[in-house]
């Protein structure tokens, strides 16, 4: 029997993209469990039993105080050792939208030096508004999750706090030098974006980041919302060449990485 790629999707009050994220992983053959954070903290479930940890989108705890803050603290204060072990074992993490905010605010991303606290943040959009819109993204860097993606992809964003701000110039330079910038907003023809192509005012147009290992990805856009062809906003104008959309490859990469490196 072929061992399964096991995905844990962590959810809590206000998590709300768990089902479509779960659907994406399951459709590509992974086995998925949606687990309440409480079950991990209480020891009813263990991170070590999974290969991929996914933090889906939503409004964890209402994004009260600041987006992702309370769940980020919960991870940092109650599960940090388990998460470190998980990373040390060469496993994968993906944080989408609220998940990216959580990973960043917990100091797991960009993770230049563990223990150094928060090195960046995702702050209010320049527009001061929540916005749901589709964005063009340039793929770059050395992230496991975005390997062999086309140079440019099309995904939706839906957030009010997605403006990437690094702690200082040095963080930004290190990210670029390390190839940790995975996705940047761009215009439809791949050029420099202005609003709304860069929907939130992110510095250096950063839409997604990975850690120094390339195995932890955080991104504001929603790949699980462009997993199927018919989720494309103008699919009725396009020829259907595949049942999948641009986001599917990201999930496939994660699963394939586990198959190639962690399952023997």
């Amino acid at each position, binding site marked *: 029997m072929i061992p399964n790629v096991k995905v844990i999707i962590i959810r809590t009050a206000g998590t*709300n993209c768990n089902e479509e994220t779960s659907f994406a992983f399951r459709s590509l053959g992974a086995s998925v469990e949606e687990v309440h954070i409480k079950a991990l903290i209480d020891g009813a479930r263990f991170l070590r039993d999974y290969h991929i940890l996914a933090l889906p989108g939503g409004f964890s705890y209402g994004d009260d105080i600041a987006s992702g803050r309370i769940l980020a603290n919960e991870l940092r204060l109650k599960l940090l050792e388990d998460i470190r072990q998980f990373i040390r074992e060469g496993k994968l993490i993906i944080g989408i939208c609220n998940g990216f905010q959580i990973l960043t605010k917990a100091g797991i991303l960009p993770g230049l030096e563990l223990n150094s606290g928060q090195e960046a943040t995702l702050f209010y959009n320049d*527009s001061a*508004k929540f916005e*749901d819109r589709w964005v063009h993204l340039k793929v770059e860097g050395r992230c496991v999750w975005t390997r062999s993606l086309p140079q440019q992809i099309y995904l939706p964003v839906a957030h009010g706090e997605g403006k990437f701000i690094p702690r200082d110039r040095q963080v930004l330079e290190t990210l670029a030098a390390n190839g940790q910038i995975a996705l940047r907003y761009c215009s439809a023809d791949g050029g420099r974006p202005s609003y709304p192509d860069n929907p939130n005012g992110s510095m250096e147009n950063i839409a997604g980041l990975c850690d120094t290992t390339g195995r932890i990805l955080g991104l504001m856009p929603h790949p699980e919302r462009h997993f199927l062809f018919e989720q494309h906003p103008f699919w009725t104008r396009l020829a259907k060449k595949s049942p999948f959309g641009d986001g599917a490859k990201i999930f496939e990469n994660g699963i394939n990485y586990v198959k190639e490196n962690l399952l023997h």
Partner: protein
Amino acid sequence: MIWRVEVRQKDGVLDPIGASVARDICELGFDAPDVRVVWVYLLEGDISREEIKRIAGELLIDPVVEEYSFDLKRPPQSGSRHVIEIAYNLGVMDPVEASTIKGIRDLGIMGVKAVRTARQYHIDGQFSDKELGLITNRVLMNKLVQQVVGDPSHIPASLGLSGPPVSKFDVLVVDLAAAKDRRLMEISKAGQLYLNLDEMRAIRKYFKKEGRNPTDVELETIAQTWSEHCRHKTFRGTIRYRESKTARPRIIRSLFKTTIAAATSKLNKKWCVSVFHDNAGIISFDKDYNVCFKVETHNHPSALEPFGGANTGVGGVIRDILGTGLAAKPLCNTDVFCFAPPETPAADLPKGALHPKRVMKGVVSGVRDYGNKMGIPTVNGAIVYDKHFAGNPLVFCGNVGIIPRGKEIKRVRQGDLVVAVGGRTGRDGIHGATFSSGELTSASETVSSGAVQIGNPIEEKKVLDALLKARQAGLYSAITDCGAGGFSSAVGEMGEKTGARIDLDRAPLKYQGLKYHEIWISESQERMVMAVPPENIERLLKIFEAENVEAAVLGEFDGSGRLQLFFHGQQVADLDMSFLHDGLPQIVKEALYQKTALKKEKLPRRSLDLTPELCAALGHYNVASKESVIRIYDHEVQGTSVVKPLVGPCTDGPSDAAVIRGRLGHPQGVAVANGINVRFGMIDPFWMAASCVDEAIRQIIAVGGSLDRIALLDNFCWGNPDKPDRLGSLVRCAQGCYKAAMSFGTPFISGKDSLYNEYTHKGKSLAIPGTILISAIGHIDDVGRCVTMDFKKAGNSIYAVGTTADDLGGSIYLENSGQLGSCVPKVDFKTASRIYRALERATKAGLLASLHDCSEGGLAVALAEMAFAGGLGATVLLERVPYKGKQRREDVVLFSESNSRFIAEVPGSQEKALAKIFKGLPLAKIGTVEAGPEFIVYGLKDKPVINARIDELKEVWKSPLR
């Protein structure tokens, strides 16, 4: 001990929230000032100085961009000219409190007891006190829920509302036995019961038989159960209807049963699973699931506090879906609003009414907040602007849910426990049900402020998560939501057959000190009541605990047939359920419908350049792009959207119905649409109803739906039905609903009415125009075959489907020249049905590249929208448009709003096949899609009457509400 922590942004960090407040101030006519926002947290409890540093540093600030200060002795030196601090009123739920307390406990700091937040605005600019007052009341706060903190450096002694726990109390008895008629009405009025004399007399009689006087809570329970809001007395009572003052009246025994429900029962569709008697109508979906649909209004609360009103409106309709059958899972929201135009001068507003711009901003934000945080996509909606909504805006909130087959049946069993789950009970929203059964006055804001609330979507999301787990485990036999009337309504309804015994002191409270009647009728949000067999209670409580949702056993459905309430062991109510539910005296209301004498439209001199008229139609608020609203709603969460609200290569074209999948990975879906047109109703409510049904249906046909699988919802918003003219037009509207539903074979499955939408001001009663919203849900077999409205390819042919007539009455074209007109569009049901079936065949066969319905703005607007949405031009010949009417003029053909019409785009290779399907039906090739940006329409004399570029037209359409 109370600590005060202030969080501000570090120097050099852009403050987008402050900037947006500055824009709002600018809109009041001031120069935009520089505004910075400081977030204030008051933390009460046993917390040390070291702990407060940790709380601030690790929880309350974002260390990358923010800094904090605490323990302030003096107001901050900000250098700003004005500092205004706004906090929620005591008693209004602070949505941030619960999660902040959790965040603090996660830090290992357990001494925290209460948290309140405030916002401090630092405004740099020259303002007089009067101007600051204006800014405060118009931009920074709503005094119904918020207040200015006089001296921020003053720290209160306690944050809570807690009074002493109530253990000793008196049961209040109301002396009805001795009350004469006048006194009865005084009692009704003083208690905000909104009961009329007949009803008060019936109550007096009942208690005479019981040999005692009622307690206050008994009276409240009856008032709530018998309220218009809960009983729909107008729709279910008897009406004497006349069409002239001298005509003999027709007796209508239940308008509801003889129109709306009659159509459904005569049509007898086998796919209707449950109609009218549950929280939402249920229809079949696929072999494993059914779907349900409900639309409700939340007009009165939204008029007073737009954010909170719309917020709790969305929360309420979602709970309706959670309380349908044994709980459905919400799939999408649809929301429709009616406001006065944004440029309405403040002087034209009734006293006490909020400005429509403010109403709109609050309502839209309220919907955004609840829908987005619940993770339910808001996929479709409409906004109607008309000056008559200045005192009474309308807010319709709808939700579609999905539920496994078999889970639609609920039945309370004798011996089941009464379990309350979700939010705690506070003093919020007392008298909501009775309040919405009366007219608004300028005093409403003070009298009814308790009825206004702010929701907590995350609490409801937790309830949803836990509920679906408990449903799957089959742990309860019935469920309903706590809406208007709170526990009183929920328990009263569920226990109608069995009776119930409730210990009110077992309800979890937000704060101590609530009286028994307050607990019983409180409308605190995010609560549900379940009937749980005793053997399942342990497992059920465990599931809710795992999701951090509170659940409490309040009592038992005990088989007594009575409603018995206890508080600390003492009985406070003992009512016969059959009196409560069947004791309402029959009401007879008078209705008179007289056709209003209307001025016939006066058409302008025939013009050969109608481009300005097209631009005026595209720029009309009702037609103009709603993109700025749509984008702040998450319309894609859950991943189910197939036809999004915005389509085309620039994702900005206005699509018709929204289509979503029912389940990821399955091809079946539902299309959701709304039909609304108040101006047609000003001419004739019958044809308004028929036109709205037609509009909702044709939007579903436009995306690929089938006439055989469309169900309807009605939502009547009317003035005071105790006035014969208001009720007369309501009857006429309901008759139109009946006629349209029967003729199209589309049953109603649920509905709602909101009456008394009047605003009494200086003795003059201003009513809204009678408004019906028809919402439709259509089954889609295969979402992969859906069609959108954007032109796809140059060279394709453009077809007009359906016949245009001189139906300018109520049109945008006439409104733009200040007229209403008299010739309202009618519906030729027979031809329309044949057209819809033909279009269904055409879309299923893949013959159409695009399809768009013609509604407001007529043919001209539909064509222009298709062109600029697709980024393609068009050449159109008006003389080819199928036309039937007396005045064949360019403007009439272009702007008439005749029903049952579409524009279709057809590739050359499919034209023959299309002609075959449409044999004998009105269909004509009227033009060609062009690669260039020119949009040219040739008039009846072969000269261009419209000549514009699509980018110009798009700009005209996009700019009004940007």
